[in-house]
């Protein structure tokens, strides 16, 4: 007996058991609360602290470069910037989401499993003063956000602190 739930939730019931599509909002929440961490991270996947560089995926969703140059200053401390989302440890989103950038943000985040999203800067958190028809809003309007790093722009030290917070919660690796 299969009963379908709304498509947006991407989950279904078979014989009373709930099956959740990987990457769905529900699945992501489960991952984040840590209920399924043991199944998710097998021994091969679990990365011990200090074994490799932390990989960052950086999205500029409409920022003024201020946060971006502070994010890129992290390469001094051994962080890697990657093109491939599947190997990234965290996603750093900078800036208030603009109209042309919102479909790209949604497309990109649909590919992720449970990579934590960090909103870097006051624009990404609240959209500061920007409004009107071109700026749609803060980042957490489009995707669940793990950590918020305040500042206009935040210092590299604060961003590093945010990354370590996000990674500790997810349990994948530490800074």
């Amino acid at each position: 007996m299969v009963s379908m739930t709304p498509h947006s939730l991407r989950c279904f019931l078979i014989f009373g058991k709930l099956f959740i599509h990987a990457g769905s909002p529900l699945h992501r929440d489960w991952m984040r609360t840590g209920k399924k961490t043991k199944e998710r991270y097998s021994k091969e996947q679990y990365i011990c602290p200090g074994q490799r560089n932390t990989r960052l995926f950086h999205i500029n969703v409409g920022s003024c470069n201020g946060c971006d140059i502070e994010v890129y200053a992290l390469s001094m401390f051994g962080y890697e910037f990657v093109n491939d989302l599947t190997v990234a440890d965290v996603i750093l989103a900078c800036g208030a989401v603009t109209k042309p950038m919102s479909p790209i943000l949604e497309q990109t985040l649909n590919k992720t499993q449970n990579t934590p999203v960090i909103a870097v800067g006051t624009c990404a958190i609240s959209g500061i003063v920007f409004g009107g028809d071109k700026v749609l809003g803060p980042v957490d309007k489009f995707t669940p956000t793990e950590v918020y790093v305040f500042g206009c722009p935040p210092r590299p030290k604060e961003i590093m602190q945010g990354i370590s917070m996000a990674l500790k919660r997810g349990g994948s690796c530490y800074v």
Partner: protein
Amino acid sequence: MSRATRELTLGPLDSKLIEPIQIVARVRNSTICDVNVRANYVQRNIEKFAQGKDIFTGVFLVERVCGICSHAHTTPYCQAVERIVNQNPSEQAKYIRVIVAELERIQSHLLNLFEIVHLVGKNHLPLKILKSREAILDLLEMLGGNRVHYGVNKIGGVRCDINTKIKQKIVKGLEREKLQTKEYLGLIEGADMRHRMENIGFLPKEKAKDVAVGPPARASGVDFDLRRDAPYAAYDKVGVDVKLRTEGDVMSRASLRLEELLESIEITKRALDRLPASKDIYGVSEIGWGHATSRVEAPRGENRYSIQIDEKGLLQKLGIRTPTYSNLRVLRDILLEQNTDDLEIILLSIDPCVSCACRHIYI
């Protein structure tokens, strides 16, 4: 010889690019034969949003146009508003504006050098460049209180003062920077970097004279710099020695930026020597109406602001013409007939600032 063309897309999300910009190139036999550039991803319509706001909020808004050259945006804005309300800043405020502008130019050029060297693939050199950039950011933080949006400018003056202690620290930091920059200049003009960057992305002088501004134009032999030709703030008293190159390729643009950087260090030192010792830096603003235009030489070229204020003292119209807006029009010409491997380095050689270039256009 195959005649088939294929499409090569760079961006908008790429770890080599700091900002979202999309370049779609038509490629035949790994030679670029057509280019389309899309650079409207971070358009926030600050000009539209500023309408109806008062002139003091405008300083805050305009600073958020660009994070790398925020002082180069507040300076023309404040100058235009000062022209409307008939209020000249004091001598000391003008000198402080020059000092902050030159420090900003240094960090902006170092960031571009970092991007280029990072792309070429040197191991430790990019990190070294970032570290010397941090030293400049520390000086700016000491002046304004923030690393990126320092907020030094105010209408009718500046917000912070430079005392003898800060002066000594800046001179000390610049001396160290000068030695390091000479080292980078030697490395850039060394054999392996020269092999990578020479004879690609050629920009002829006629084209540069029509469209390009700033370092790309000066590297092609166009002798034009607003700091010398239409001096604002205290540049007429400090004096500027404009650097020129005539080759017009990627190599000449990169080394011209470093030469300009050395000149900026000299300008800052001269301005610090001649800084008047008065305490009169803050301006008291009055309300006026009218329209005015002001332009400054930003790190990337000419930056022009036109402002209209209505009778209530609110912003009626704000027009911004940024240097990257001009320089992106050159991009198609310098990318044609080039190898696809050189696409990224040619893009970085004009130092694109996409958040500057995404502008609201009045029709």
